[in-house]
């Protein structure tokens, strides 16, 4: 399986799961909509809509409806022409009205997304830098990707961290004369806002800073003439561009781009791709928008805003009184109550619908998968009574579903990094005890605390992590100078009442590079940034992972014949969360799991993990041969040709031995061969392994150091040295070549890598092993030797997805460069 970014697969799984459960992809069945009552799908029961972004409820205003109807009567259902050629007369009137509303220069766009697409490529120049707030709306990312593809420097910063923004401005201002900070006025998921005044202060301080704001959810609700949240704080700045939507509180559809100067507006109007090549906003929308603009320019708007604000205040109070975990308190009409896991969110929404309330799932990709929540909105049309009733239902079902799922509320607070009210903590202890009543968990922080016979019986023959192998790893990865080479070890065995193991595994906690599972091209970029910043820990995270960075294979023993295997799995995930807290790690990872296990897939997704593709692993488990020629004859015709030409023709040029009693100098040379390979391989981008590990391997009875020397007639150097080395771990049944070192100056002429691979196979055959774990990478090469591909996946849960998004945002540039 090729390594992939998690986004599309996970979006599909998460949303499809919601659709299957009847809470996503819904359809209304009302013949006619009146106010906020909806009929959904086949149900005849009405639900009150708490998911509408039409915050002022203007969609039912007779004047606006008449505006739309009159425009259709006058111009038909559409006016089909690019605005580059001509625009229906309504445009001129509407844009003039918007200039008054915003007290700036406005251009109407068919949608706000098309507004971004039309504006960003025109106003951002090749030498500008773009800094995106982590939570800025997806449509801004979409448009920024267009300029990124042209080479414009872009980066993400953590949400609303203006201190970091200032640091980045200071760093970038030497190279970039314009730095654009892109953020939302009101954020669409949590409903929090950008600290606009602080952004303005930075603009005063740094003339390079320009501000680009998407204020879709602030439009109409805030500010003079309903100009939005950003302009309610400060008038438009000379270095600011604002994009807003007419499809939320404005209630007509469409978008507006607002500029500080006429020239800038004219340039976007003339060159913006969506204004040249896309269809225009249609007469109905234009007519409605003109009518709505007139309301915005009247005093009536302030009464509407005030009515909405009353509902917002009431909702904030009502949430507090019910003790619901509101993720961000603000004075906007968007509310987000944390639940953490998608399955809990969907279950609550389903129950809410049965009780007559429609609320949204706040779900991936809008938020990190572990930060799922119930997102709801209030509009001017809701009554206090409706808000009260909805929140009564939400408080009830929130508590009930968490209880049913044995998911303590403390974990919800933890997921959102919120402080838990003290009285809730007692509940957590009770729930945990209840959950573990039928199973017993044995936990040790060293393999010495685990029975050797039992461990080897469960996991001993899978790879390098039998009891002795783990003892070796513990000794090698402690007391090192570099923090990335000091790991924490934890061992878990979950047993049933009869003491029978249902689940066994080991976990290590270590610093990982965030791009470890990313495509090689991404790692190239990240490594360049690490070097430029002189910070080897840039984009790295401490992770609690099943297995370790130096082991491969299925690290998880699980007895799926036990009726309690899911509970045991649940305990594993819970323990991982506890370890994450204990070691202050930022995420948890289960790796090397078999691909295509739909039961595990859905279990992991239910528990807030997303799936990552891992590089393909390779195994040779057929040894029906005795001689070299017999080995070659087991291969495919094409491979035979390759192996004869690239391997067998060179066999006699090498002396191969299992090295014993290596001197310090010899070992240092072998280590340098490893470093050669490490510096070239970014497929699994890991930190450099410590020298101490190699020293330990050289003296450990289970490790073999296979050294390849060229015979003297082929090695003309004054001092002959090994040209390749393979460090292999030997278990009862398997041979595990774990680390390769090469002298690349001999690679082309003597094909030392191919030779090393073959010698590993020959050695395993000679030792009568049943299989060789050939590890990741070099698929094409390994297949020539008859290796079988093993597709595995990983499941990850991150405390926040900032780093992952930074890494995945690098994919675009790479694809374009390809």
């Amino acid at each position, binding site marked *: 399986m090729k390594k992939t970014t998690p986004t599309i697969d996970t979006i599909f799984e998460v949303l499809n799961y919601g659709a299957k459960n009847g809470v996503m992809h819904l359809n209304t069945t009302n013949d006619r909509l009146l106010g906020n009552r909806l009929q959904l799908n086949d149900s005849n029961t009405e639900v009150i809509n708490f998911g509408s972004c039409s915050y002022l409820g203007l969609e039912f205003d007779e004047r606006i409806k008449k505006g739309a109807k009159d425009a259709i009567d006058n111009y038909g259902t559409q006016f089909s022409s690019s605005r580059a050629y001509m625009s229906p007369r309504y445009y001129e009137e509407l844009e003039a009205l918007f200039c008054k509303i915003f007290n700036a220069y406005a251009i109407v766009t068919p949608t706000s997304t098309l507004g971004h697409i039309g504006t960003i490529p025109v106003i951002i120049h090749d030498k500008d830098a773009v800094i995106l707030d982590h939570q800025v709306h997806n449509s801004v990312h979409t448009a920024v990707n267009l300029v990124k593809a042209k080479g414009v420097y872009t980066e993400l910063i953590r949400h609303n961290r203006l201190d970091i923004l200032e640091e980045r401005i200071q760093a970038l201002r030497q190279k970039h004369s314009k730095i654009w900070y892109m953020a939302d006025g009101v954020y669409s998921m949590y409903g929090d806002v950008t600290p606009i005044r602080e952004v303005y202060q930075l603009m005063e301080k740094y003339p390079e800073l320009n501000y680009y704001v998407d204020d879709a959810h602030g439009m109409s609700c805030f500010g003079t003439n309903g100009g939005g949240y950003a302009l309610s704080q400060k008038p438009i700045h000379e270095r600011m561009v604002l994009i807003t939507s007419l499809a939320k509180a404005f209630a007509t559809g469409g978008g507006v781009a607002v500029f500080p100067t006429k020239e800038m507006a004219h340039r976007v109007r003339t060159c913006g791709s969506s204004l040249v090549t896309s269809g225009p906003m249609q007469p109905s929308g234009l007519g409605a928008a003109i009518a709505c603009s007139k309301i915005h320019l009247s005093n009536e708007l302030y009464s509407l805003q005030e*009515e909405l604000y*009353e509902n917002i*205040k*009431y909702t904030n*109070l009502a949430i507090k*009184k019910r003790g619901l975990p509101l993720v961000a308190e603000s004075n906007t009409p968007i509310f987000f109550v944390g639940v953490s896991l998608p399955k809990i969110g969907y279950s609550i929404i389903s129950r809410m619908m049965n009780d007559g309330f429609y609320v949204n799932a706040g779900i991936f990709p809008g938020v990190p998968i572990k930060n799922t929540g119930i997102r709801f909105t209030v509009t001017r049309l809701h009554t*206090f009574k409706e808000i*009260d009733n909805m929140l009564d239902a939400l408080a009830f079902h929130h508590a009930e579903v968490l209880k049913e799922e044995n998911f303590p509320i403390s974990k919800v607070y933890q997921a959102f990094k919120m402080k838990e009210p003290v009285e809730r903590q007692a509940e957590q202890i009770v729930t945990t005890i209840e959950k573990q009543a039928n199973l017993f968990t044995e936990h040790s922080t060293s393999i010495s605390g685990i029975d050797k016979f039992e461990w080897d019986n469960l996991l001993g023959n899978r790879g390098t992590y039998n009891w002795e192998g783990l003892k070796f790893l513990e000794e090698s990865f402690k007391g090192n100078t570099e923090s990335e080479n000091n790991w924490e070890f934890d061992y878990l065995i979950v047993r049933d009442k009869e003491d029978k193991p249902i689940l066994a595994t080991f976990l290590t906690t270590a610093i990982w590079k965030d791009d470890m599972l990313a495509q090689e091209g991404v790692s190239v970029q990240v490594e360049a940034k690490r070097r430029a910043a002189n910070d080897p820990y840039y984009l790295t995270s401490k992770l609690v992972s099943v297995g370790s960075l130096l082991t491969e294979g299925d690290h998880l023993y699980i007895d799926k014949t036990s009726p309690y295997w899911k509970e045991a799995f649940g305990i594993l995930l819970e323990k991982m969360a506890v370890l994450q807290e204990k070691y202050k790690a930022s995420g948890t990872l289960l790796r090397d799991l078999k691909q295509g296990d739909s039961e595990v897939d859905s279990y992991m997704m239910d528990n807030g993990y997303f799936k990552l593709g891992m590089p393909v692993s390779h195994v040779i488990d057929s040894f029906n041969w005795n001689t070299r020629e017999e080995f070659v004859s087991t291969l495919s015709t094409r491979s035979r040709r390759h192996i004869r030409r690239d391997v067998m023709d060179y066999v006699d040029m090498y002396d191969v031995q299992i090295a014993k009693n290596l001197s310090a100098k010899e070992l240092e040379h072998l280590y340098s061969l490893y470093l050669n390979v490490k510096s070239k391989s970014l497929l699994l981008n890991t930190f450099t392994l410590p020298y101490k590990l190699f020293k330990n391997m050289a003296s450990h009875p289970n490790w073999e150091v296979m050294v390849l020397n060229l015979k003297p007639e082929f090695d003309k150097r004054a001092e002959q040295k090994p040209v390749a080395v393979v460090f292999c771990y030997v278990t009862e049944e398997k041979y595990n070549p774990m680390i390769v070192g090469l002298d690349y100056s001999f690679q082309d002429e003597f094909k030392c890598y191919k030779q090393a691979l073959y010698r590993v196979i020959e050695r395993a055959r000679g030792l009568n092993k049943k299989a060789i774990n050939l590890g990741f990478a070099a698929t094409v090469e390994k297949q020539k030797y008859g290796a079988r591909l093993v597709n595995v996946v990983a499941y990850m849960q991150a405390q926040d997805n900032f780093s992952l998004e930074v890494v995945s945002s690098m994919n675009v540039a790479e694809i374009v460069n390809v």
Partner: protein
Amino acid sequence: MRLTKEEFSIFNLTSKIKMVENDGIYLIKKVIDDKHEIRLFLLYGFYVEVYCNYKLNKMLEVKPVVSKKWLNTFYMGLINQSNFC
């Protein structure tokens, strides 16, 4: 939802009127002049005075009662003191 006096005070007149109409218990009134009267309501466990134009049947001002002494003299002991909070 029961609000405290402080919470009640953050709302505008329209909202306060709605709350009084929906959740308030009317207790007593005092006529001020030929157009205006003050109506006393028990709302969420505290007293609320509503200043009204009774000819237009329009509520003009709604506020929680803050002075226990004033309440007692104004309504001459007709009010149950235990509800004053």
